[in-house]
């Protein structure tokens, strides 16, 4: 439960940091060259931070925990290689070791050392995957809304 709350708080905090300054986040997202379509780029910069906040709140409340964890895991799996790629590009450009590269990856914490961020993301992926296994049910409002529908006659997933 504590891990679920910690992960939830982490994403609420990181999401709000970005959501309150979407203009700065937009500039950072653009550096990744994800797309040349401005509408798509804007949608990522505008939506992603609030989506993180939403998933974080779900984890905190204990609602659709595995669905939220799955989304966070997918986002981490998508963005971690991008962070690595950008860090490698900067390392090559500045002739630096990867772990000495410090940059704002747009993760919500300002400038960070690349290796620290990559390790942090790996830990977050592990925690998200752990929640996917169905852990962290204590004090959850509605842990798994679709479980009953998929397993008719299955156990009640509401744990208070």
């Amino acid at each position: 439960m504590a891990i679920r709350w910690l992960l939830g708080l982490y994403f609420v905090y990181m999401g709000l940091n970005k959501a309150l300054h979407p203009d700065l986040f937009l500039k950072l997202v653009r550096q990744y060259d994800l797309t040349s379509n401005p509408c798509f780029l804007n949608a990522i910069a505008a939506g992603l931070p609030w989506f993180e906040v939403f998933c974080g709140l779900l984890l905190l409340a204990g609602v659709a925990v595995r669905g939220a964890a799955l989304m966070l895991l997918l986002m981490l799996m998508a963005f971690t290689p991008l962070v690595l790629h950008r860090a490698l590009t900067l390392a090559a450009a500045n002739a630096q070791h990867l772990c000495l590269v410090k940059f704002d990856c747009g993760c919500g914490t300002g400038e960070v050392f690349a290796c620290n961020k990559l390790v942090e993301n790996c830990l977050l992926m592990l925690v998200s995957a752990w929640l996917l296994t169905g852990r962290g049910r204590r004090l959850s409002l509605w842990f798994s809304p679709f479980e009953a529908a998929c397993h008719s006659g299955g156990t009640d997933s509401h744990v208070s």
Partner: protein
Amino acid sequence: MRSILLEGLAVAAIGAAVALGANALSPRGLKLGRDYFPPRLQAQSSGTNLSPKAPGGSTNSAAELLAAKIRAFGLEPAESNRVSQLFNDPRREADLIVFIDARDEKDYKQGHIPGALEFYDPYRDKYLDTVAPVCRIAQRVVVYCHGGDECDDSIQAALTLRDVLHVPKENLLVYGGGFTEWCSNGLPVEIGERNSGQMRR
């Protein structure tokens, strides 16, 4: 497994709707249909045609590259000496020479060129009413941001002044060195609101 996927899809769908709704309601939200980085700016940022060579064959200085980049947008760059002269020109007191600070609100409040108007392009609507009339009558409009590699904000703001507010391009100058150079030259800095009278060195 199926229930997890269903949950994930539901979270994705509801989350996307909530996220876009929150952005629409947020006073700092982005306009999805607006191009915050015009195509020309994107093309130039990629480094296209921005590597002029010095006559001797060596690569020109960073300042010259920046000036070339500013010119590539059809804008006129200004160096620190010229900017200092314009700052000390008596016409500035009559708003015939205007300085435009293209950095965000927080940076502006922490310090700006005395008398400069705030104009952060991503939230341009907030500033248009103040900036438009002043810039249209000004004989010279000097736009600056942090300077150096982070000069895109001043270029973007100058393009908005030229293309949206129809400020004549011959009146527009982009101070490439920007606020960083201004401070390193030991020139006066005003903090807080415009004409607050609070200065720091």
